[in-house]
């Protein structure tokens, strides 16, 4: 297994395990079917859908190249929202889900802005790459699911109850912020940042202050200033993702501190 695959393997497992604890109402644009809890049985269907998407997105670019006056790029979003593969990757690995939206809008915006065909083809290649990478992630998740290593995807909200679980949930929510931003839902992304801070981070920051006050202050600034500003300024998916990844690295440190804090705590009774 290559390093990249190993990393994806770990991330898929971690992402899915925490997703099961995450808010269900933030998921997907449509209903999540039962297929997401039986991935293995639907891999061939997902594979067909990826081929179909590649062909459909390609036909949009071809129409642009052919200077088809009737072309509407909105159809790309309709294609993506039509397939079951959409919720399969959304429930298994949000970072690549975000990359797909980034790719769709990369092609769409390039066409809408009348960019040269070569530029549009570059964006199309990135989109196709994200789609196949996503299929790989879903296949990997299906293996874990078959072995019973993945929790069932929850469609109702389940709250994390320990400090480390809260941190895991925050990281997953931040991945969703990138996805919602990539989906061009900036208000939704900003609201998710705000809710994550109020509903999750505020609950654990108290324990962290005594351990590393500077870390907490940095994260407070990230939640309240840096990330909302990156979204508001429309700095691009890569910029927003960079802010989120920097926050997630700080959150890893916070998680370690919370585990230590819990070990040293006296019993209630």
């Amino acid at each position: 297994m290559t390093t990249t695959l190993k990393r994806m393997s770990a991330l898929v497992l971690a992402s899915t395990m925490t997703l099961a604890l995450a808010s269900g109402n933030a998921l997907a644009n449509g209903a999540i079917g039962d297929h997401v809890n039986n991935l293995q049985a639907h891999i061939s269907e997902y594979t067909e859908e990826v081929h179909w998407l590649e062909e459909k997105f390609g036909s949009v670019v071809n129409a642009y190249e052919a200077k088809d006056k009737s072309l509407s790029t909105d159809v790309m979003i309709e294609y993506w929202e039509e397939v079951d593969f959409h919720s399969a990757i959304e429930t298994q690995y949000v970072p690549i889900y975000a990359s797909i939206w980034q790719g769709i809008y990369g092609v769409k915006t390039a066409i809408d802005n009348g960019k040269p065909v070569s530029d549009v083809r570059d964006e199309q290649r990135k989109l196709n790459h994200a789609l196949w990478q996503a299929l790989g992630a879903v296949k990997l998740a299906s293996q874990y699911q078959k072995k019973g290593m993945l929790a069932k995807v929850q469609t109702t909200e389940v709250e994390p109850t320990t400090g480390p679980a809260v941190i895991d949930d925050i990281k997953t929510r931040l991945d969703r912020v990138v996805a919602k931003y990539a989906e061009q839902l900036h208000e939704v992304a900003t609201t998710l940042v705000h809710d994550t801070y109020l509903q999750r981070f505020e609950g654990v920051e108290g324990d962290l202050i005594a351990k590393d006050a500077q870390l907490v202050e940095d994260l407070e600034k990230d939640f309240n200033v840096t990330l909302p500003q990156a979204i508001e300024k429309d700095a691009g998916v890569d910029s927003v993702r960079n802010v989120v990844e920097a926050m997630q690295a700080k959150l890893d440190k916070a998680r370690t501190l919370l585990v230590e804090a819990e070990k040293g705590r006296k019993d209630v009774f």
Partner: protein
Amino acid sequence: MQRRLFLQGLAAAGALGSLPFGFAHALTQAASVSVESLPKLEGDLTLYLGRGEGGLYENVLDAIKKRNPKLNLQIRRGGSAALANTIVAETKAGVKRADLFWAVDTGSIGMVTDSGAAKPLPVELTAQLKPGFQYERWSPVTGRVRTLPYNTERVNPAQIPDNVMALADSDLKIGWAPAYSSFQSFVTAMRILEGEKATRSWLKGINRNAKKYAGELGVVMGVERGEVDIGFANHYYTLRLKSGKPDANVALAYTNNDAGCLVNASGIVALSEGDLPVNFIRYLLTHEVQSYLAREAYEIPLVNDVAQPQGLADLSTLSPPKLDLRKLADLRPTLNLMRDVGVL
């Protein structure tokens, strides 16, 4: 700094109306009890739990469950206000799903008590609570107070006015976090107590000499680093910082009978009749649980004979303002005012 004595025993009974909800239940006083003296909990209970101090409330619940293996405790978690809305809706529909509601703020408690869903609590239970925190249909669990953290190297306590409104005219360099929810609740309290005109003037005055921070921990750390002389923050940020860094250059000051020393509380409501919900509440008021939350979460214990978090002034020496805390939910006029003044 002058500090008015607050509610010293029965002599202060006239001030009881200044506290949340304004209806003192019992004027008798009883000592806190040990968990060893409580009855075992047996049976089914459903608790609606508002988000609070991360895993610490969960630790308390786990400890209660461990001590009472025949208790089947089901917990629904969510935001306090959202759960309060759910309880009100369930009550109107004649559907009762929760036996208890533990909320982090008094406004959410008020929504439930106003709906008529709350059951009365025995006087001998509420008598364990400190004067001013005894109510017929809900029990405060722990408290938090607004404070003025100041830099001990740059400021002499005598320089600090004991009136929060006077800070707008001082030469002190001030740290604040206008976008922070606790600060906005504080401004809401000021708007209710002092009026919109005075609050507008205060915001403008402070803004002339203030440095903004993203959150109130940032304010406390800015004070400690000497970027500003003094700030506005809930008490626990400073206490937690001091616990990790005992020599930090920051201490707490308190104003007198105004929004600057507002006390808010978490609280619990019994929604079902019978001994089991009431006895569950007794566990939260035990010496052990109150000490745990004071020690680990730096929350203010509200039963008698339990030590305050280290570094906090005794509650009896504080003078919180006369205010129905449920009114703090009226945030929109505050945000409009803050935007109009240009601090948001």
